[in-house]
């Protein structure tokens, strides 16, 4: 009799040994790994970030040092097809028309571009998430915050960015120094004009989430609004925030370079990728590499970030994951 019941229970048991339990982030990682472009993109972003952070220690040349004797040096690889070209082994990427080392300038420019990109992205995420959470969670603020978001969305962004830079350049420069002031200004204007998409996405997610049972349960045991938001809502909207973070990083890098390109960016002796590109354009017929190198740096970084975002979107979406 007892044997019989044991058999019944045995039939209910799984034949294979149970798999190791896997956390959500392990699933995400294994899905992410399947997207080759995303792995390359993320890898390249990591590489370029480390390169611009540690580059000055590896390539120990001052980017601002003028070396007028060795001006207009071509990059070392031009020697392959043009033996007469002026190349120097200790100037592998060549120099510009004032003899400044191009590799050191690209590292320094990358530092500026990447730090502006990261800072503007983080700031716009904070604003966007804040507005999104407030308007999704508190019904009274919803109408006005969303109308405000729509209004900001219908502003002409690039013209207003240019106007804002022109207007606030002088006071900020005199208060924080030419470089720091410009950094604050550019990060500020980019993030103030790019938070709207994040706010809309976060609001949509919060609106759906706050009707779920676990929020009701949390509320019924007397959890305060602030705790509900930080403990229960924010961890659940982390994936759309991460996806819009990658998009934000890409747009911030491009916007900063565009401002520098148009001459509304950092002061003239402070290299950024956009400024290096803009400075090289007038003589691009003779020295195309000076346009190509910073341009490729911008493009590859943004391409990597975009692919990373693509992969993250797939990996963080539970409906796609595991297929």
């Amino acid at each position: 009799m007892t044997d019989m019941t044991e058999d019944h229970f045995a039939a209910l048991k799984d034949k294979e040994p149970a798999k190791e339990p896997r956390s959500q982030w392990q699933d995400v990682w294994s899905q992410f790994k399947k997207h080759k472009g995303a792995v390359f993109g993320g890898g390249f972003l990591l590489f370029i970030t480390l390169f611009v952070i540690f580059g000055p220690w590896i390539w120990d040349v001052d980017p601002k040092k003028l070396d007028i004797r060795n001006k207009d040096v071509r990059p070392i690889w031009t020697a392959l097809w043009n033996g007469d070209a002026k190349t120097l082994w200790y100037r592998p990427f060549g120099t510009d028309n004032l003899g400044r080392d191009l590799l050191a300038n690209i590292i320094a420019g990358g530092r500026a571009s990447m730090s502006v990109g990261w800072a503007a992205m983080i700031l716009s995420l904070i604003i966007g998430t804040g507005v999104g959470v407030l308007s999704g969670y508190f019904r009274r603020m919803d109408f006005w915050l969303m109308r405000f978001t729509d209004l900001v969305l219908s502003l002409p962004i690039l013209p207003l960015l240019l106007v804002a830079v022109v207007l606030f350049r002088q006071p900020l420069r005199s208060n924080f120094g030419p470089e720091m002031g410009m950094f604050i200004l550019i990060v500020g204007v980019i993030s103030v004009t790019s938070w709207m998409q994040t706010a809309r996405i976060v609001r949509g997610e919060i609106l759906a989430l706050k009707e779920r049972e676990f929020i009701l349960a949390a509320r019924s045991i007397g959890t305060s609004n602030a705790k509900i938001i930080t403990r229960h809502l924010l961890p659940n909207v982390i994936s759309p925030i991460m996806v819009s973070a990658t998009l934000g990083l890409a747009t911030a890098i491009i916007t900063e370079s565009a401002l520098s390109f148009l001459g509304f960016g950092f002061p003239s002796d402070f290299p950024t990728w956009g400024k290096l590109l803009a400075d090289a354009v007038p003589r691009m017929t003779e020295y195309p590499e000076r346009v190509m190198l910073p341009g490729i740096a911008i493009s590859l970084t943004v391409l990597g970030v975009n692919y990373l975002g693509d992969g993250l979107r797939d990996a963080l979406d539970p409906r796609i994951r595991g297929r």
Partner: protein
Amino acid sequence: MLTFTIRRLILSVPTLLFISLVIFLLLQLAPGDPMAQVPLTVPPEIKEKMREALGLGQPIHIQYIKWLYQFFIVEPQVMIDWMTRDTFLFGWLPDTQFSMVYNADLDRMVTEQRVISWQWRGPVMDVVIQRLPQTLWVVGMAYVVGILISIPIGIYSAYRQYSVFDQAGTFITMIGFSVPPFFTGPLLGIIFAVQLGWFPLLYDTTHEVNNWDTFVTQLKQMVLPVMVLALQTTAQISRYMRASVLDNLNQDYVRTARSKGLSEAVVVMVHVLRNSMIPVITVIALGIPSIFGGAIITEVVFGVSGIGDMFIRALLSNDLPTVQTLAFIFAILIVMFNLLADVLYGVFDPRIRYD
């Protein structure tokens, strides 16, 4: 539908007023003084008169209302007068004199005060009208080319999902998203103008088309800026087109159409295409104003003297009325095309009901 359109039109008035206020107040903070270039020998009281002539003496809210009046009342009146006087289309109508007011000092009719540029010393709108054709030619052509390229690409890469063509298309659109126009501009310039010598590097605005050869030259000089702008449009719209066609290919009506024996060409090009164009049309409408903004960079790169170039020049020379007016024109474009997109969506998709 009509009530919805009217309601949206009415709602866009406060939006535009708010935007105009933002732009106006932002520019009030400008540190520049239009009298900075005036020689120091000019006495202060004359300077004060000159400032008043530029409309600077009055309090801010009066300046704001006057600017609005000039922008919304005087400029359209001038436009109508010009159309009934000088254009072929409306010239047969009797001459209107909406913008004329009687001036007692001169004892004749004069044009009302218009928005005057500090830089060109003439009405801003005249300069805009002069420059608008350049922008419209290049930008409009680029947009049309971009749409014409991207729609077939989107359809084919959705129809053969995950094929080599689709993968390549995805890669190229990613590049189109990632490579900024201020890099594609010089890059295409190096390749096609410097190395190959097919097209001129800079756009010549003064070029006049009057025979076949000049027409060919005009086409050649338009190729590079159009390519740069079209690359971005193509990237964006072909992505939307692909997603939209993919959505529709899995629908029941596609299976029905196939099962009643329609050919693949008819199923895809008639049934699927018409349905998947609905969201894409709104994306196209939404993209038009942002193309104007993005064209600023392309115009600077290729030296097209359109309104983007005008904006940069005005900003650099501290010409606030021009900056203000142009920024507001950009804003009007955005608001109007948003409205157009919403209305088009309702017109083309009978499932959408706004009431």
